[in-house]
């Protein structure tokens, strides 16, 4: 008996040729900004203004501008921080882990996902700095040499671990993202007409020539960086979770936090990638590159991580009961039935119940429902962090100190402000950078005789520019030989 593998569905549809790919992606960079993009940027810039105003109020008058109090010393600030860091995780996962697992479908989305990672980490990094009482002394957290003898950073403090985790994460993600951009910048450079564009993209492409040696090194570096980034997917949110897990606060002091936070991060990250990609594919007409199959795959990952998170929620309750620790038990009963029950209910509904709809194929392949789902998950994951931080703090050990938290207008301003910052950066990226990794997408084009692209002199004006690479082409040239019988 002979087993014949099913022919895989092509990862890029629409019968694109290599040239089409270049054309489609570079078009967005080269064309004049369209009205929809301008409108979106104006909205984003407005919220960026809100962000700057809120930062001004916070830095000029103090943290008192927020709604915090003596009992709840962290609330929206750290909620937003963890939320943003979590969102960033999907980018790293897609670019690094999926690369190592040779998941080729990642090629269409990894660029945007990585950009999202970087912008999300930028947004996240705002909060640890802004939430400091004296942000101008933020450099104290670095173990720099000083004249004060024994004065050194406290390596016992999870906040210090955070500093290293986040800065490493940001640096590696940035380098990884940028290395990937270089060949594409070179493509744009080569096509650029205006002197400014030519100069800018020349600088950005670091003199990329596309030699075989360069491609070989490019691939090697990508692989190494993927290897370096993979542990980061796990470590960053593990360390973020230790901000809570190493404390004595009931509801925080939980050993399940690291895996639970990592799963939650990937969950929320995929939701955010979906939100962004669904918009981008429509705005920039990239339906052939980001296909329904992509959406379905990402939905599946979201459902799995959502379920892991759901199990973690239930495990926490089990452990609270099993430990027989009075304070721990009360913390969890209070979460579900106390004054903030609504945030717990929102979290459970959004994160555990709603993603289960993905079991239905119709939901999985529905763009509209997926979009709504991705938004719901993002809301749910924000509430998860709010639940963990605020409902644990507001009623801890001494009932005398129990208090309620309600956000001030500045709290809200900073949150929507970082959304403004994020979307401003993302929109600028989408306009001026190639949103899809052209070089890598070209490697996954279906290129066979039966239903592959055919030479069409009318359609391709520069057909001679890219003879199908066969013999003599660089090993890493954007060609894939799909083996068929």
């Amino acid at each position, binding site marked *: 008996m002979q087993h014949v593998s099913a022919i895989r569905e092509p990862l890029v549809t629409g019968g694109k040729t290599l040239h089409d790919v270049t054309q489609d992606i570079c078009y967005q960079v080269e064309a004049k900004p369209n009205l929809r993009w301008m409108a979106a940027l104006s909205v984003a810039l407005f919220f960026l203004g809100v962000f700057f105003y809120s930062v001004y109020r916070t830095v000029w*008058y*103090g*943290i*008192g501008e927020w*709604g*915090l*109090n*003596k*009992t709840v*010393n*962290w609330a929206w600030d750290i909620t937003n921080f963890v939320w943003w860091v979590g969102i960033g995780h999907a980018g790293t996962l897609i670019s690094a882990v999926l690369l190592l697992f040779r998941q080729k479908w990642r090629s269409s989305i990894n660029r945007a996902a990585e950009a999202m990672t970087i912008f999300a980490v930028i947004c996240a990094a705002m909060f*640890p700095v802004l*939430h*400091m*009482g*004296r*942000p101008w*002394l*933020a450099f*104290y*957290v670095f173990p720099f040499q000083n004249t004060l003898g024994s*004065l*050194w*950073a*406290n390596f*016992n*403090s*999870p*906040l*210090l671990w955070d*500093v290293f985790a986040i800065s490493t994460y940001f640096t590696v993600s940035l380098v990884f993202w940028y290395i990937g951009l270089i060949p594409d910048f070179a493509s744009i450079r080569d096509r650029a007409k205006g002197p400014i564009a030519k100069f800018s993209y020349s600088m950005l492409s670091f003199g990329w020539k596309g030699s075989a040696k360069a491609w070989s090194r490019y691939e090697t570096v990508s692989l190494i960086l993927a290897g370096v980034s993979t542990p980061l997917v796990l470590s960053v949110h593990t360390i973020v979770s230790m*901000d809570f897990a*190493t*404390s*004595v*606060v009931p509801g925080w002091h939980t050993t399940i936090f690291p895996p639970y936070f990592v799963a939650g991060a990937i969950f929320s990250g995929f939701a955010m990638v979906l939100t962004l990609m669904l918009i981008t594919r429509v705005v920039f007409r990239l339906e052939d590159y980001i296909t329904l199959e992509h959406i379905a795959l990402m939905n599946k990952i979201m459902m799995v991580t959502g379920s892991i998170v759901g199990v973690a929620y239930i495990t926490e309750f089990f452990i609270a009961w099993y430990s027989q620790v*009075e304070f721990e*038990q*009360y913390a969890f*009963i*209070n979460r579900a*039935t106390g004054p903030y029950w609504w945030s717990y209910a929102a979290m459970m509904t959004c994160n555990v119940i709603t993603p289960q709809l993905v079991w239905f194929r119709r939901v999985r392949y529905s763009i509209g429902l997926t979009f709504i789902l991705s938004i719901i998950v993002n809301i749910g994951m924000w509430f998860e962090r709010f639940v963990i931080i605020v409902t644990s*703090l507001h*009623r*801890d*050990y*001494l*009932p*005398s*100190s*129990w*208090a*309620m938290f309600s956000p001030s207008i500045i709290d809200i301003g900073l949150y929507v402000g970082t959304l403004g910052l994020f979307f401003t950066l993302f929109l600028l990226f989408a306009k001026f950078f190639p949103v899809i990794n052209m070089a890598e997408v070209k490697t996954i084009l279906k290129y066979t005789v039966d239903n592959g692209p055919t030479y069409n002199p009318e359609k391709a004006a520069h057909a001679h520019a890219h003879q199908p690479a066969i013999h003599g082409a660089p090993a890493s040239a954007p060609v894939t030989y799909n083996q068929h019988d």
Partner: protein
Amino acid sequence: MKYWKGIEELESAPEFMQSAFAEFMPVKESHESSDATSAPRRDFLKLMGFGVGAAVLASCETPVKKAIPYLNKPEEVDPAISNFYASTYFTGADYNAVLVKARDGRPIKLEGNPESPITKGGLSARAQAAVLSLYDGGRLQHFAIKGKQADMKQVDREIREKLAGAGRIAIVSHTIISPSTKKAIAEFTGRYPNTTHVMYDAHSASALLQANGGVVPGYDFSKANVIVSLGADFLGTWISPVEYAKQYIVNRKVSRDKKTMSRHIQIETALSLSGSNADVRIPVKPSEMGAAALTIYNHVVNGAGADTKTAIGKAAAELKAAGSAGLIVSGSNDPAVQTLVTAINQALGNGGTTTGGAPSNLRQGDDARMTALVNDMNAGAIGAVIFYNANPVYNHPLGAKVKSGIAKVGLTISLNDRLDETGSLCQYAAPDSHWLESWNDFEPKRGYLSLAQPVITPLFATRQAQESLLHWAGNNTTYYKYLRANWRAVTPTDAAWDKAVHDGVMMGSALPAAPAMTGMSAAAAASQLGAGAKASGVELALYEKGGLSAAGTEANNPFLQELPDAISKATWGNYVAVPRKMAIEQKWEQGDVLKVTANGYSIELPVLIQPGQTNGTVSIALGYGRTLAGKAGDKVGENAAPLAMTANGGIQYQNVVTLEKTGATSPIAQTQTHQTLMDRRPVVQESTLAQYVKDPKKVTEYEKIATPDGLEAPNKVSLWQDYQYNNHHWGMAIDLNSCIGCGSCVVGCQTENNTAVVGKQQVINRREMHWMRIDRYYSSDAHKSDFDTKGKVATYAAMEDPSENPQVIFQPMMCQQCNHAPCETVCPVLATTHSSEGLNQMTYNRCIGTRYCANNCPYKVRRFNWFSYYSNEKFEVVNGHMFTDLGRMVLNPDVTVRARGVMEKCSFCVQRIQLGKLEAKKQKRRPKDGEIVTACAQSCPTEAIVFGDMKDPNSRISQLLRREDGERAFHSLDSINVQPNVTYLTKIRNAESEFFAPEVEA
């Protein structure tokens, strides 16, 4: 061989040789001028350079340094060394012998004077805060005529002229316990014979005086085994609370050697500090107080059978059984009630024990005389009136009539320290100096003398009131000389006088005997009360808070405005305390504004749901709602004094009121909003006397944690390496049986440590900065034992509601200085570290304000500087003393004023520890036990706090901890193993405990 540079050198011409070896060639002006008046170019440049330089230098303003060294250093003043001077605090309410801590010539802190036989080192919250009032910018800073600044001589001249032809003159004051002041007033009266001196008390004790021949009996709570209080808050505000608390606690402290306690029964309307400490608390309506007194009277005096079914009947039986070790006191201002109380005390035969002490002079006000004066003023019969630190327009129930009366008096003079509600209506203002700027003497109890000495020269152009009166009477002596002369009898020698000034207190008598008052007969009182008509409608009880006195004198003192009420934990303003049942019936929520009307006067105040408030009654605090107190004190709350019942010249601090919901809401600033303990025994523990007598080892429940070797004490298991303390290990023990929750320590700490005042809105935002607080928990009807029957969720919800008449426990809470401090590990920058003496220390300079330490503190004692409290204009009104040069004089130079964005917390008064160690080191010895005390421990009226070195085996704290180990000593939240250096001693209740679920037999 010689070479020449030129022909000049060869010729060695003199003009050449002159400059041949000079470094620079002489400069020649290119345009030689023979005109002597024109300046050469280089001179011009030099001059211009100098000119510009000088101008630049002059424009760089050198910072003005106000630290001017002494030309002649006063003998006693050394820079940075504090001196202590004995003095006396009495502003019309409670008496405290104090030590004034003066630093560089300015008073910065008041402490209790341990030499005093009356207050014995204790200090009330009001006295603690009084030092801030000295630097109050709201004081009148000069003499004034019709509110305009005037020359002192001109004022004196005009007043003297007008007094001469004034007709009847009245001096209105609060109770005066100063012999020399009374003599000065007598001298004034001698000069103007038609003068009457009328004293009234904002919280009057006229009826008490009337029933006791014109004096307050000398109570001794320390000798009482059964104390029955009919609405007298003797621990909080009644007459002499520090004195009474000191006595009371003697028979409340327990130890292995003394397993007895007095039994305290409180019969009252509003839940007071005394009621919250009582073993039995019986809520009654104000109108039922007479009946309660009568029931006890009938049983104790007339021998009627006690109805042991009622709580009051049981109380009567207990009281009678105690005999001469019984004591009944009453805060009522009804002469009939007080007459019966006196009769009951007589019948108990406690004259030699609990009521036999020297009578107190602290209340002398006579309501009838004051009412008569007000009527006379309105009738135009008074020619001149002098208000001597009295503000009746504000704080007398007939304030409106006083106001109209003042308009009809020809000459009105105010000696008040500010242009307050009364002073602003007077023609002349001759402001009295602050007591810290003045000499004075006091006789709080017959035979007990006390002195006040000036610690600073008057800050403003004020003059002591006594001197003003003497001056107007034609005696131009200084008050010091007058006082000194007056004291010749008791201190004949200079040495004796010096000792009296040094000690601040001495025995001896100088006050003339109080005018005798005749009361009614007990039988008449009994029949009057028996026939008493029952009031209908909602009854109002007016009460006084531990912070602000009924007179409202302290209203502009933000320390006291922000001091949480001992019971409700409310700050900044008064409110209508409503029982839960009434609130539910009327559908009132906390914060709903009610319109309270009585006597045709109405005020609008928010509702506070108060457990323990008698059903059918509401309570409102006096002393709020000032309008001319100063920036911080104005418009805080509403003035409730006019709601009091005035009839037949007497004042009753109760009335029948109508309440209407206005629809508005006004949040109440409480520092604690959760009321119950949620059955959390690990937090605070209590047990009963019966259990303690049976087995002291069973009163405290010690938590055990599971280990592989079975259940162990939490500190047996640790991942940490313990710190080594080689020299000192500071610790604190707090006896919960002694702590009465008065809040004196809270203000003491605030003064010592420059803690910012944050104002009402920030308290509502839960951001008060107090380093020390007193947690107050009410008991609840629901307990953990209901888990099985009612389920956890429902039980926890029910536990949040206090009982209708709850038991109360107080727990002073400050940084526990944990040996395994959770805050220390989480700070990323090591801003909070552990000292080699066991202290958890904050390094403000290093703090970047991540606030993780505060989140991770299980005791929630860390306080964050959310704003710049000393420069943000939002805080200028409430924290004004940090904004002005005048106010900043009160700051303790040993303690940093914390910047915005840093964390702060209790330091165990590390500056005092360092000072004590330094003093000891200078004398080449170790610090003695008791030499180093924290601010909170220093003036605790009940000595509930013991501070010391746990390394010293003979220190009081070491002995105490050894004695109480395994019995009453426990750590709060022991099981999380943070190993605090603060140890609590279990509270013992002389009654059944309702706090925790009953023990289930294993």
